[in-house]
Structure formats: C-alpha cells, structure tokens
C-alpha cells in the first residue's frame, strides 16, 4: 500500500477545503470499495478525506411528500427504513439484494453510487484497461466479458456499473445533490453516471472536489415498485441482469411506468423507449414484451454475454406482470 494522508472531516466545508488542498485526494466513507481498490493498487490517492462523520446520515420526509436520504446513510439502515420499505419498495429490495450483510452495514448511499466496475481487467493493474489507465486498451472486448455490458458500451470500454441501489433510484426518478466550492447543484440520477464513450475513465459527472450530500426521491409515482436480480449464487453476487420497475395500472391500462435495468451497461439503464411504448397501452404481457423489445433493440451483445438480452426481457416482463397484479 502506498502511504497516504488522512483527515476526518466534521463539517462539509472542512471536507471541501481538505480536498482542494490536496490534489488527487479522494473522499472515503464506508470504504467498502475504495479500500479494496487501494489494496489492489487500482486507486492510489495521496490523501483521503473521511466524510463518514459528516452530519449527512438522516432519512427525512420532504415537504412535497418525497424523501431526502443523506449521503452517509448506511445501506442496511436505508433498506430497513419504514418509509423506504412502504413507499419505495424497489429501493429496499435493491439494497437487500446487494453485497452481503456485513458490507451493507458499512456501505453508504453516496459510496454505493460512486463504486467502480468489477470488470476483472479494471481490477488487475498488470493488464491494460482504458478505464484505469486511459489509452492502454480494453482486453475485455475479446476476453472475459460474460458479466459485462450489452447496451451503451463503446470500443474503449464494456464495463458495467455494479450497483443494485442505483438501478432502483434510476427507476424512482431520484436526484443527486452535489456540493462543491462553487456551490450546490442537483443532477438526475439517470444523468449522474455516464456512458463510456471515448473517456471511460470518468464514471460519473461529478466534478473534482464535489461531494455527494444527499439523494432525494419525489413522492412515489407508481402505485407499486419492485426490484429483481438474476445472479450466479443466491447472495453476495453482482447482478447478471437486474430490473427495477414502478407501475400504475388504471382500468386495465398503463397510466405510469418506470423501468430500469442493472448489469447491462456502464450506468443504470433507464428504459425510456420501453416506457414510451407502455404509456396508455393495455396492461398485458404482450404490451410489456413489446415495450421491452423496443428498448433492447439497441442491445449489442459481446461474444459471451448475449444471454443477457433474453434475460433482461424475461425478467422485465415478469416484474411488470407481477406489479400489475398487485392489489
């Protein structure tokens, strides 16, 4: 491990100042991904600003009936929160589908959004990787890529974003609140993570020094929401494909639908094309299949991950069908 400086910040202004004073610094909270990456030599920050004690650990109802989730709220606490369980079922289910109980106890909301891909080449500093070392190449395209992207990838990078939580947040129209020295701004969750394009080294739109302070959710739009994940083992495995959906059916027709996929792209994949098809249509399995097909028409699978396309289709149709039958 490389030597690094460390400061535990008690206030957000202190955290921002410490970051600004130490070029190349990184924020750390739960450390469940960053510390691993430091051990692997993938991340080599000269300075860590520990934000785990910042007063950002509240879950509060907002004036409009939505929810404000502090950036340092632990995944396990968020999953168990009564308002999350009752109003944002997909979020609670997604959190509980992620990692292991021990990791969920340490991992935070902000850190979960900012975790890096688990692509084997990204994690191995003895091999090329455009995300880790820009310009060195992407061995995953021709190499080991069963778990990698089928949508939105580029010649430079086929990595997937590993989060479960972010997929639910994408379907639930979450907003991410950022604080920098220049002030605050808000980014929709669906625009928070980027597609790789020519610069896969950037996972998100976060600017240097900006701190995720909170995630807010609007009042639940769909009557019900759900999250389902397909994986190699029953727990502690990343999604092969996951689906988050919210659905409202009135008089046999889809009034509102939100759909997002995980495990398929460099970002949580909000399925706007599918939602377009669903709106106003009869709430039938045929509609759902047609809608999902419209979304997955853009899929461009690699040699060994074509199974993800029918898996995404089947899982989405099943989740929507089940939601429609909820009382």
């Amino acid at each position, binding site marked *: *491990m*490389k*030597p690094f400086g460390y400061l535990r910040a008690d206030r957000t202004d202190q955290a921002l100042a410490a970051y600004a004073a130490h070029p190349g610094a990184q924020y750390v909270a739960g450390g469940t991904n960053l510390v691993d990456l430091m051990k*692997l*030599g993938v991340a080599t920050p000269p300075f860590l600003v520990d934000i785990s004690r910042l007063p950002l650990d509240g879950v509060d109802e907002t004036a409009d009936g939505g929810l404000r989730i502090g950036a340092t709220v632990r995944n396990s606490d968020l999953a168990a929160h009564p308002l999350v369980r009752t109003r944002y079922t997909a979020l609670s289910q997604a959190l509980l589908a992620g990692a*292991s109980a021990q990791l969920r106890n340490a991992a935070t909301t902000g850190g979960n959004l900012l975790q890096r891909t*688990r692509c*084997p080449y990204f994690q191995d*500093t*003895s*091999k090329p990787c455009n995300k880790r070392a820009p310009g060195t190449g992407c*061995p995953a395209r*021709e*190499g*080991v890529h*069963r778990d990698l992207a089928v949508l939105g990838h580029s010649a430079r990078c086929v990595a997937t974003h590993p989060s479960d939580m972010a997929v639910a947040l994408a379907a639930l129209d979450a907003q991410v609140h950022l604080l920098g020295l220049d002030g605050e701004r808000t980014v929709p969750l669906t625009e928070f993570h980027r597609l790789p394009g020519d610069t896969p080294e950037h996972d998100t739109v976060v600017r240097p020094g900006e701190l995720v302070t909170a995630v807010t959710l609007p009042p639940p739009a769909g009557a019900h929401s759900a999250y389902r994940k*397909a*994986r*190699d*083992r*029953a*727990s*502690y*495995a*990343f999604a*092969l494909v996951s689906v988050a959906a919210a659905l409202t059916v009135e008089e046999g027709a889809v009034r509102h639908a939100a759909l997002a996929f995980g495990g398929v792209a460099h970002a949580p994949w909000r399925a706007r094309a599918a939602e377009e098809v669903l709106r106003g249509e009869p709430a039938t399995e045929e509609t759902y299949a047609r809608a999902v097909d419209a979304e997955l028409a853009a899929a461009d699978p690699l040699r*060994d*991950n074509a*199974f993800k396309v*029918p*898996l995404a289709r*089947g*899982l989405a*149709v*099943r989740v929507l069908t089940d939601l429609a039958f909820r009382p």
Partner: protein
Amino acid sequence: MPTNSPPQVPAAPEEDTAERRDAADRRDPDARRDAGQKVTGTARYAAEHTPPGCLHAVPVPATVARGEVTAVHADELLRRPGVQAVLSHTNAPRLGEAEDPTLALLQTARVPHRGWYVALVVADTLENARAAADDLRIEYATEEHDPGPPAGHPGLYAPEEANGGHPGLRERGDFDAAFATSAVRVDATYTMTAQHNHPMEPHAATAWWEDDALTVYDSSQGATKVRDVLAQLFQMPRHRVTVVSAYVGGGFGSKGTPRPQAVLASMAALHLGRPVKLALPRRELAAVVGHRAPTVQRVRIGADSDGVISALAHEVVTQTSTVKEFVEQAAVPARTMYTSPHSRTSHHVVALDVPTPSWMRAPGEASGMYALEAAMDELAVATGVDPVELRLRNEPDTEPDSGRPFSSRGLPECLRQGARLFGWEGRDPRPGVRRAGDRLTGTGVAASTYPYLLSPSSASAHAAPDGTHLVRLAATDIGTGARTVLARIAAEALDVPPASVRVELGSSALPRAPLAGGSSGTSSWGWAVHKACTALAGMVRAHSGPLPPEGLTARADTAEEAGRESPYARHAFGAQFAEVDVDTVTGEVRVRRLLGVFATGRVLSRRTARSQFIGGMTMGLGMALTESSTLDPAFGDFAERDLASYHVPVCADVPALEAHWIDEEDPHLNAMGSKGIGEIGIVGTAAAIANAVHHAVGVRLRDLPLTPDRLLPHLRA
C-alpha cells in the same frame, strides 16, 4: 492478534485445559477440543506468530505468460527506507533438487506461466514490503504462450500414470466390439471448468534460522512432509528443521504438498538472518497453490435393454503445466463402480503455459464421478429403468478392474436407505413436467465413492502418575476435528475417560505422521494412536504400585501394517439425492434439498463426521452450480481470483442438507474399522444436482457449472 513469542517453540502449543475438556465431554464427547481457542481467536495460525525482529515478505508474480526475466531493478527499491532485500533468481539462496518443481523458486530466469513468483521483497513492515513489491520493475523476454484449450490439442499425450499412481490406461475385454453390438448406447461428453480450493486461511508461513536450525510455522496439511521437503531443498539433516502447523484454516488439498510460502519465507530468513513472515494474497492463490484441472470427459456405455452394462469407456482429456505433470485421475472411479466386462478407461493430457493443477478435494473421484454418474442417468432415461434400480442392477461381484473382492461395499444399502429417506419411491421419471409458476422442479440421484487409503504413522502415548494421558504425533488438524477424534480413539484403547487424554499434534518435532489428505488422516494416525495406547494399557496393567514419577511411555509405528498389501478392494461408497428448482425466467438453479447416505466403515465421531459430509456436499453444490473459472487465453491466467468473483456457495445457496450413514462392519481396514470421510461428500453431488436439473427442465446440460447463461437458451418462461 499477533503477539511476540521467543523463537524457540518447536512443538505446538496446546492451550486447552482439563476443565474445559471435562465440560465439553459432558456436553458432547464430539465437541471440538479447540473450539474455545478458535472462537476466541487465541488459536494462532501461521501468520500470527511474530518473533522479535520479524520482517515481512511480499512475493512478486510474473506478469507474462511465458518467457524469461531479463532484469530485476532492485536497486531503486533497496534505497527506500525499510526495504531489506529483493530476492530473485540473481541472488536467492540456491536450493537443492526439488522433487516438486513448483518449489524450485527464484532459481532460474524462466517464467513458465503468469503468476509464477519471480521475486520476493522483504521489508520491516507489511506496508513497506507491499509498496515496494508493487513498484518493483521487472523486464521480461516474452515468448508466445499456449493457453490451450486441451480438447483436440496436438500436444495431447497418454501419460503412463495419472495422479495417485494409477495407470493412465486400463482395458478389459473388447470395448469397441461390445459397445457396437449393445442394445442401448449412451455416448456423451461432459466438461467442467477449473475449480479452486480457496481455504479460508490463505497459505502463510513464518520462518527463522537459529544455530543452523530452521523453524517454520506453516499453514500446511502435514508438518512432517513440509519438514522433509525443506530439509531436502536447504540440504540439511531433517532433525535441524522443525515445521509447526498447529492450527490450519482449511486446505482442501492445496496445502497437502509444501507450497511456495514455506520455501520463500525460509529463503528470505536465511538470506537476511532474521525471522520472516509471508502470507500469499488471495488473488495469487489460483496461480501458485494448485487447482482442480478442467476436464473434458467422454463416457460411453453399452447395455442391454434392462440396463445391464456390458461395455463402459471413460476417456478423460485434461491439462497440466509445463512445470510438472499432474493428471486429474477422473477415469479411475469407472474401474471400481459398475459391472463392465468390456472396459476402457484412459487419460490424455497436454502441458500448457498455465498454472499447475494439483489436488483438490477428491481429485479424480469428484470430477470423474460427475461424468460417470450423469452418464448413468442418461442410461436410466434411455432404458426406462429407475436410476436407483439401474445402479443396483449393475452391482459387481468383485472390483471390475482388479478382480478383487470388496472388503465391504455399502452402495446398495446407501441407495436403498437414501431412496427411503428422500422419498424417491413413486418418482415420476418424466422430465420437464413439474411446473409451478416460473419454476420447474426435478430430482436426481448419483452414487459416490472414494478409495480407502492408509499411510504409515507413528505415535507415542504417555501415562502420568496423576492419571492423565498424553498422546503425541505430527498429525494436523486442518479444521476437521483431528484433535477431538484422536482423543476418543486413545481413550477407547486405554479404557479411560476422554477428558483424561491430551493430544499434542501439529509439529514435525512430534513422532512422524502422514499428512491430512486422501481421507486417510484419521485411519492412519488413529491406528498408530490405537497401537501405542493399547501397548501403554498393557504396560500399565503389568505395572504394580503407583506409576513412577516420569510415568510410562509407549511408542508405536504402523509401517508394517500400512505396508501390507490387502487382498481386498477397499472403498467407501455413498448415494446422493438432490431436488432442484429451476427459474425459467432467470435460468437460476436453486437446490431445495440434498441428502446423502454414506458407507464409510465405522464412524468414529458423529459430529465431526457430519461436518465433513455436509461440507463436502456443499462443495459439490458449488461444483455443480456456481464455481466457474475462466482461463483467460490472452493472458494465461484465471480471471476469477477473489471470493467476490469465484463463487463458492453462500449460506443462502445451501438448502436442507442431510447426511446419514449406515453402520458398516469391515474387518479388513484398521484397528478402528474406519474408512475416510473427508472427501466422499463432494463425490457424486454435482451429478445428483445435474441429473435433477435434467429431470426438471428436460434438457441434458453437460457443462459445469450450470450458471444461468447456460440454462437460459433451453428454457421457456
């Protein structure tokens, strides 16, 4: 927590107290004697010993798949504070001839595969050593590498022997003619990826030299073996080397042979004249501590319409490294299992520029019985004979390959009892018809077998005037409960309460003993303990008056007994039953029930035996469904190298798991009448699960593991 201890302790520490043992024995005589130390963290493992002045070493793996090291830029690191040495082939101590070439470390510039250790950095702290190892610049002359795959490879050859000393090829009768004229024929090819042992405790060692004597705390399955090999490598008499493996966090075969950590730590300690400790990083294990080699297995069975086999061929294609030949003996169990007048069992192997395979729990049996037992299921389907009945119809009178009578063969009883306990009777054989919503359900059965192996061992037994007894031998408890079961064996032979017996093991300074492997530990060690204790009991009986202050001591060695050729074929058997659900939307297979019945001679300790059986069955579940490993052809290494990506089953994967056994009296084994139990639990599990998947979905999937991507193309939601 590591604590300082003077560098002199030759024997294993035994911290259990008589009170604790009494309490444990009253509760349950099978309760682990070291449970208290293990749950409180006072049981110290190899890397948890820190002699004064101890340095830390971090190995440097090769980053090319084949070639030579042309430069090691050590100078720039040696100027750093804390860095003590950079060892490589240019300056490392010269070793004697290595019987196992994977231990010829830092001796030449040659790189036989990616991940092979090419340097070792030693520093005052782990952090400094790690940082320097990360920064060490090594230059290579790279050569084209051959990563396989083995199937159809022009370099395939027929080895004389497979692992375990079994002949590579055996033929009886005329397989081709008999197969060609059989009424029913099965011809199927099964594959499985490599699998990795991944014990909880990674391979670690702490070594120091003092007065030309070497002491090593090593995480191994056999201190005596490691001692002997280190003596050979460092060209010194055995009595000047002491290896302690007091507590070991699992091995599954990967610690059955001495591994790089013991050699590297000893080398660095010799080079620097200070104690050195070293723990291999989890991500490097796949390259340097062995693995179960991937196999391609073609099984052909010719039978009459009643399912009685006349022709059986099991042909195995596998791979090894260029470092040494290791041939997974997957065709061997077909020489024992079923009546087969015409038979061919063969192995072909190719040496590739890849890591060296080795022993992993039930080498040969685990892999081979997957293919053979899946093929038996195919035969059951082809003949319409119930799979349990089919196996009963093919029970041989003598071992097919050797013609020897079986010392005991509990397979029929295991099958019948398992069928009863599982509720097999009345099973609808039709595949793909049990659907509830998105779920298809199926059941499957498979047989298991594992040979009875025995090695010579020695032991001493001591009676003290205070009524306590001490049994000593260089056995290893790798988490199986050896301490506990050996105390019971001793107590029985001495006819004393188990609480009066203390067992000291885990050091090569103790009477010579074989390693914990081949499911032979308890039988081998136990016989020597039984013999020593029986002799001691005789001495005590013959003694009149109080025992002398120094007590009485008996020593025993089973070289003669273990060396005797048996006229019998000796194997353990079992039957495994599985019920699975297949999700037709996701392709996920989840096991609902696993039930095994085993015939392993006399079971000596119910609780520790059950642990071994269900642990093996769980590992078999991983082999069937989750443990996938990819040899990355571009780089020549395994892609899944940590426990996040190499999916061993987690608790949520493990369903209702039942292990049963039958009472088997076998007078042809040893003084206890026991067969081994450490490995048979993994044998047959994968076939039972794969057969259940076929029963559930109606499609025969022959490539393990059965991950969702392999199921999905065959399912309709």
